[in-house]
């Protein structure tokens, strides 16, 4: 699973960081950054939840990237 974050869409609500701080972070200006693009195990499940919680549509998943 590949996770993508679009910094131009992010509104800095921090829902992703709250959900999975091992995958998502915010830079000094509050915009999303990714610690990893390929979360695994429980972090992958949490990242999936974060995608559904993000209010701005900034996060997306690619299930089968090659």
């Amino acid at each position, binding site marked *: 699973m590949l996770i993508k974050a679009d910094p131009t869409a992010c*509104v*800095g609500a*921090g829902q992703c*960081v709250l959900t999975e701080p091992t995958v998502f*972070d*915010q830079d000094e*200006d509050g915009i999303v950054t990714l610690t990893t693009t390929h979360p695994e195990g429980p972090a992958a499940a949490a990242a999936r939840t974060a995608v559904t919680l993000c*209010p*701005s549509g900034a996060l997306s998943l690619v299930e089968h990237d090659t």
Partner: protein
Amino acid sequence: MGLVVAMAEAMTEFPVERRCPFAAPPEYDRLREQAPVSRVRLGGGTEAWFVSGHREGRAVLADPRFSSDRRHVNFPLVNADEVTRERFRSQPPSMIGMDGAEHTAARRALIGEFTVKRLAALRPRIQEIVDGFVDDMLAAEEHPVDLVRALSLPVPSLVICELLGVPYTDHDFFQRRTSALVRRSEDPQVRQRSFDELRDYLGELIDRKAAEPGNDLFSRQVTRALADGTFDRDATVSMAFLLLVAGHETTANMISLGVVGLLDHPDQLAAVRADPAKTPLAVEELLRYFTIVETATSRVATEDVTIGDVTIHAGEGVVVSGLAADWDPAVFDHPDRLDIDRGARHHIAFGFGPHQCLGQNLARVELQVVFDTLFRRIPTLRLATPVDDVPFKTDSGVYGAWRLPVTW
């Protein structure tokens, strides 16, 4: 179809007064069952679309074709008297009333102040503040104690004062004016005066920050804007106004209601006390259950947009009721059950889309610290009156309690 049925009966007037803190108005269920997008009447005789479904509510709030511009003639204002409309037209909007690129710029100037990490760093200070007010409660000689005065209002007020750089000694001044402003039954002239006095107060405060910047959010904003030549006093006052008002009144009411909710559900309270790791879950569920701000998530369509089976035409007003959405049984099974284990994070008590509450993670930390500390340090806390006698804020834009007598 739903529209025809809804029109055949007397049209529901929004917002419906809550008869009881432990139930969303049954009218919302009835409307949602007919159609997740229906029609309501607003005070003043105007009508608007009414969104009561969770999926549809999120769809509206995430869609850039809906505007937050409160100056638009069809924006569904609950207090739609002329004084209120004129007030929105006469001042530059804060970010909550902006759209698109303008909103993005205003919000981005602030989100660095509200990151999850910045707020986590505030937790020790918030703990200290809560402990201080609980110490005072425990030292009180007279019982019962009014929790609103003793804890609910002081905690978020002091926290936001320190963050923004507002002198806490002025708390009575801004708390009273805020409460008048959001109270629907308040005389429009009194609301207007409250608004003017708060703006004047913040204007002077901003001038002082410009002259002598301190280590606080207002000073940082003013200093940055002065440095890059974008300083606009009126717009800065609008920003300051939004942060001060939204930053204390909402969290205060959530503290009072959260305490009522947990005391009324001893099994849920016991679960939180047995495992403080559950407190964040409890906070989310309490936010969902009470969804205290129902009138901020309104919009006006700038183009024709289809939501569910309904086409909302350009220029028409839309009210998204977070309360109705957060009690949508399709998303929250048995919404009338306060169940901290359900996992309620996808509630829209903080809204959704680009305007989702900027202060949500501050509110979360405050609520978590308050509930943990209060029930740990005063384990026998109980209401000093039957819950039916608590004066709930049925006529306010932010639901809550006017007073909450407690004892232990």
